[in-house]
């Protein structure tokens, strides 16, 4: 299997001079996301020149930052307010305009709410089916992606002339943020779609690291019993410089906001250390965390399925264990 992979990579390096990839960058206003850096790595694995698209008003600094990323050949900058808030119709108009002008062989975006929103619409305009949540690049036409909540890994290919991919950031290292010296040019002007308009947003701000890129994640489930009790996990996470996550049960019970949900329908994380506290380990939750390097489960039910994937399991009352753990670390 491994040898096959090596052979395939050898083949890529010959064919790749025909590839050219557009990476659609994500940035929370000022800074490229970790997922974008992972997408740039995925684009480099495909081979060929890598162009990064930065869209949104007042994003000159983000474009400059993208130009400095290792492996980036050029940056397209669409500095216009219509691209703020990543409205699917507007981003689609932009990406389709660029594709018509430049005929990239691949268009890549990090798997996220934004890309899953606009990339299928680009697919409709170009009559191409995107590959969702790519975990690995086998060669420039062949990719691996999960199905059935990560319980099956499919190797898939297509003969479409342009390949659209969302790539799972946890599957690729982040590209080096320095060492590149790409040119920045203005993206071609795209017609405004004007179908949907942004009204407002509510985001929760936190000093903790971003859930999807944190080195340590401490997650709580129904066993936490209340939102106040998540304070225990916040303290532990702060001590480990980690992020706090949650199971669907904890979100549905109103303990924590939705954006903390880890799982098939929430975020997918693969930190070095994942501590699951009071989480039973349903298939849908495991889909979001089972690629973590080390998994610790703290649960008083010895039969909980989470213990089947945990490297270290502790069967005890979380209200006793978590404070003790926080103290001893």
């Amino acid at each position, binding site marked *: 299997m491994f040898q096959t992979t090596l052979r395939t990579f050898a083949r890529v390096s010959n064919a790749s001079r025909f590839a050219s990839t557009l990476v659609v960058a994500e940035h929370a206003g000022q800074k490229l996301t970790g997922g974008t850096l992972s997408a740039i790595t995925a684009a480099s694995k495909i081979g060929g020149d890598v162009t990064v698209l930065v869209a949104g008003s007042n994003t000159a600094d983000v474009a400059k930052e993208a130009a400095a990323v290792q492996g980036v050949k050029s940056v397209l900058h669409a500095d216009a307010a219509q691209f703020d808030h990543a409205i*699917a119709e507007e981003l689609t108009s932009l990406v389709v305009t660029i594709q018509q002008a430049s005929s990239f062989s691949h268009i890549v975006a990090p798997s996220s709410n934004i890309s899953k929103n606009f990339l*299928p619409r680009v*697919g*409709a305009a170009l009559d191409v089916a995107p590959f969702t949540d790519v975990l690995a690049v086998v060669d420039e036409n062949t990719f691996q992606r999960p199905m059935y909540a990560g319980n099956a890994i499919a190797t898939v290919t297509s003969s479409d002339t342009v390949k659209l991919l969302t790539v799972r950031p946890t599957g690729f290292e982040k590209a080096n943020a320095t060492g590149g010296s790409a040119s920045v040019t203005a993206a071609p002007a795209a017609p405004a779609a004007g179908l949907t*308009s942004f009204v407002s947003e509510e985001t929760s701000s936190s000093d903790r690291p971003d859930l999807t890129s944190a080195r340590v994640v401490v997650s709580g489930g129904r066993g936490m019993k209340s939102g106040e009790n998540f304070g225990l996990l916040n303290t532990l996470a702060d001590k480990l410089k980690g992020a706090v996550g949650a199971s669907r049960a904890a979100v549905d019970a109103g303990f924590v906001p939705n954006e903390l949900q880890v799982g098939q329908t929430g975020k997918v994380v693969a930190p070095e250390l994942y501590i699951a506290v009071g989480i039973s380990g349903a298939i849908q939750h495991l889909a979001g965390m089972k690629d973590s390097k080390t998994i610790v489960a703290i649960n008083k039910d010895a039969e909980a399925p989470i213990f089947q994937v945990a490297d*270290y399991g502790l069967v005890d009352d979380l209200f006793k264990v978590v404070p003790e753990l926080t103290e001893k670390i």
Partner: protein
Amino acid sequence: MKVLVAVKRVVDYAVKVRVTPTGVDLNNVKMSMNPFCEIAVEESIRLKEKKIATEVVAVSIGPKQSQETLRTALAMGADRGIHIETDLRLDQELQPLAVAKLLAKIVEAEKPDIIVLGKQSIDSDAAQTGGFLAGLLNYPQATFASKLEIADKKALITRETDAGVETLQAPLPLVLTADLRLNQPRYATLPNIMKAKKKPIDTKTVADLGVDVTPRIQTVSVAEPATRKAGITVPDVATLVDKLKNEAGVI
């Protein structure tokens, strides 16, 4: 106002699937309506209960058994069903772009004001059909919706983002995909299941609609994910901290 809701028959969410080299074994496995489609049906029916919608039409594409999925939607409260029959495997061969093209034909014929889908199906996990459909029709799209309000031919949609929620406004007709927290789907009651048997289901074939459904993405192989090596149970916190420090080296 008319609502079109798309529902998919998938392997039940609680089933632990068995992987074979060509795909997932679908023989003798419990099938159900995709959970996100249930939420889509529920939202459609609520629009009718709020007197915003006058008719809810459910559509499903798949083998004969997809009619069971349609009957479930009818038992929940949809008025009639449309079944587009195909023998292609729904998790691998009948793909989102083809589904969206078939649905676009139904939209042309039915002219709904809003098309509601689930955000993703739990078998192929593609999360594409809604976006494709909106793009094909050049309708506005509201994906991952957790709240919907309709007034004066305009929709106000709250959608889940990576950082929180955002609210968008869009004119109708609109394509909406339902996220988990849009609502809590109802159970079909026995009397409603009986009544649903009398509601009409119109059957069409893929050929009737003249859509090319050839798979665009070919599956080379399917494998099980790498299995984790068995872990250990530690007796106390001190041992756990010691293992994390000295064995795993993660703290």
